[in-house]
């Protein structure tokens, strides 16, 4: 039996011992690898140095690589992003940490008007290989501005790439892919999953490309698309549904812009039913894009209209109400019933 080159590469990867670590640690080791491999990689952010970040994602990196590569910056997000733009002009690959989702907005102008546009503006001459790390989402009982899901703003911004990870292996691989990418990347980290543990192979060759979605649970009746923190919830829902005899296919989107519609379309053409879930408010969220694009591309395959299970269209609520905001297993199952044509919460609800 002959071994192909690709298979050999695969084997080499798998020979690499895997380690069990948390999702936060997986990002930490990813950053560490990137810092070690390319001296043009620098980290900027608030409290990322001695403190190691409020989530300890950069723990130990300043000690290892020095304060001029892992830089605590003054407290100003526009300043962080704008400085990163200048560093990118000079050939650096800056990785910016935004401390919490809700603090990205002071940097919005620099991201949308500069980072996203400079490559286009300069006819492809200047590159902006900037990675912006954003811990996002709720479920940690936090005060205001600490639980938001602003990904759709960036997905709607031409020139940016937006990705999100749901497990330690992807966290490690994808942060490194993001840093390696010559385009600017918004990297959304599911903060309430930082402490989830998993096996991590630190060899990134042979891993799924950054732009690809992944079928994490195969199934036949309903496609459930999720990303970031809700992938685990969707997987739990698939398990619960299978007890009821419904076969749910769960897709981890991974890349939010662009979206891997090839994988999504293939799934929906098989199942004929689509549920999309995200924590972000619904109106104008990514669920709308997925529903619209899938409908456009696979209308004749759909047994039912796509259903979205999302956060509500209110500002993120106080912690004591967040269970009534974040989609959970039950709300996803209710939507599965809906697309299956089973009795559900809206069966008797007047439209």
């Amino acid at each position, binding site marked *: 039996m002959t071994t192909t080159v690709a298979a050999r590469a695969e084997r080499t990867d798998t020979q690499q011992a895997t380690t069990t670590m948390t999702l936060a640690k997986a990002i930490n080791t990813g950053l560490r690898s990137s810092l070690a491999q390319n001296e043009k990689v620098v980290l900027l952010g*608030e*409290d990322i*140095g*001695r*403190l*190691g970040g*409020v989530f300890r994602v950069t723990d130990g990196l300043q000690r290892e690589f020095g304060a001029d590569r892992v830089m*605590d*910056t*003054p*407290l*100003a997000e*526009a*300043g962080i992003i704008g400085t990163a733009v200048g560093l990118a002009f000079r050939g650096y690959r800056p990785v910016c940490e935004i401390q919490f989702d*809700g*603090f990205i*907005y*002071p940097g919005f102008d620099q991201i949308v008007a500069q980072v996203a546009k400079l490559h286009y503006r300069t006819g492809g001459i200047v590159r902006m290989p900037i990675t912006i790390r954003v811990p996002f989402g709720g479920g940690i*009982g*936090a*005060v*205001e*501005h*600490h639980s938001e899901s602003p990904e759709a703003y960036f997905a709607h911004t031409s020139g940016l790439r937006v990705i999100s990870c749901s497990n330690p292996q992807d966290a490690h691989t994808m942060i490194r892919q993001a840093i390696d990418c010559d385009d600017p990347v918004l990297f959304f980290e599911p903060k309430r999953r930082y402490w989830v543990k998993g096996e991590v192979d630190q060899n990134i060759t042979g891993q799924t490309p950054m732009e690809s979605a992944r079928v994490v649970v195969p199934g036949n009746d309903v496609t459930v698309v999720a990303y970031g923190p809700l992938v685990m919830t969707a997987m739990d829902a698939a398990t619960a549904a299978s007890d009821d005899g419904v076969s749910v296919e769960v897709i981890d989107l991974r890349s939010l812009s662009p979206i891997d519609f090839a994988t999504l379309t293939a799934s929906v053409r098989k199942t004929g039913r689509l549920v999309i879930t995200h924590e972000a408010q*619904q*109106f104008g969220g990514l669920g709308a894009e997925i529903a619209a694009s899938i409908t456009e591309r696979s209308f004749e395959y759909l047994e039912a209209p796509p259903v979205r299970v999302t956060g*509500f*269209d*209110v*500002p993120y*609520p*106080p*912690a*004591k*109400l967040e269970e*009534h*905001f974040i989609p959970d297993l*039950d*709300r996803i*199952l*209710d939507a599965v019933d809906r697309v299956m044509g089973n009795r*559900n*919460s*809206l069966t*008797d*609800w007047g439209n």
Partner: protein
Amino acid sequence: MFSEIDTARSVDTTEFRDRITPPDSIDQPMRSGEIIQLLTPDGQRRKNSQFDPWLRDITGDVLADLYEDHVVARRIDTEATALQRQGELGLWPPLIGQEAAQIGSARALRDDDFVFSSYRENAVAYCRGVDLTDMIRVWRGNAHSGWDPYAIGMAPPTVIIGAQTLHATGYALGCKRDGIDSVAIAYFGDGATSQGDVNEAMVFAASFQAPVVFFCQNNHWAISEPVGLQARRPIADRAPGFGIPSLRVDGNDVLAVMAATRIALDRARSGGGPTFIEAVTYRMGPHTTSDDPTRYRDRAELDEWAAKDPIIRLEALLKNIGVFTDELRESVAAKADQVARDVRAGCLSLDPPEPLTVFDHAYSTPNSWLDRQKSQYAAYLDFYSGGAR
């Protein structure tokens, strides 16, 4: 040749009161970096011909009241921290060490003045007369804002660093337009001075000559970042370049803080425009109950500042002037105990809000999209309420 803050000129010692005139004529600069102190760490009263006239009404009784405020504020802090440790609060941002800065300034305000603060100004809220349960509401996760801003003249805490300085400026502009002499005061930290918003607030306030006081508590830290990372000059030096006079006071000295705030308020009320105050103090506790300051700062620094504690020095002053009686000690202790009990009871009395209130007040008028969503979620809750699933 370079335009620089004057670091050489000595302090003007003429009576200040006479010099309250539009900023352009304030031509006697304070020496850069100098910190005004009226009360030494060991409770000695230092004379200051410019500040003292602003404190003529501060009798022993008033000092005793201020002392009570300090003790109560610290007690609230301790109790809230305990409640957080016990899982009753989600988070608490201690103000321990900053009592004088907050109380001295807040007690200088009139009821019709308006406060725009960050998350740490719970002693300010206390001085504004906030209900103790309301104070705790945000930190238990029951609400984003615990109190009625108009009832106590204080906006809800602003978590986005520095954003509230612009709100204070706008509010002050409104007061000016309304022809009243109320003043807006913005509280913010040393870290906040790096934010664009704070600098824009200074630009707008100066341009419109808004009656606003920028009150910066330089507590030396922005989470793990020392103030030196934000500013290589004393923070008070920043404002003059914007055309805003500034004062730098010992923030652990309630008298210096109060006098400075009164001076700034008086300037604002009399059409003098904005003033910037830097209260030099220290965050004795962690950034919040989630923080572990041992990762980034030394015990020695803490000890140094413990010796400058605002309560110790106020107590010493009271002793020096013979006001610190057993009776006072006991009444203050009793008050603090009572407040602590009220905080705890208030906290425990707060049940989670009703599920459907998650939709309330996103809009003040009907919104077809959201109303439909609420109706669907109500149907959802109904559908499963019988344990249908």
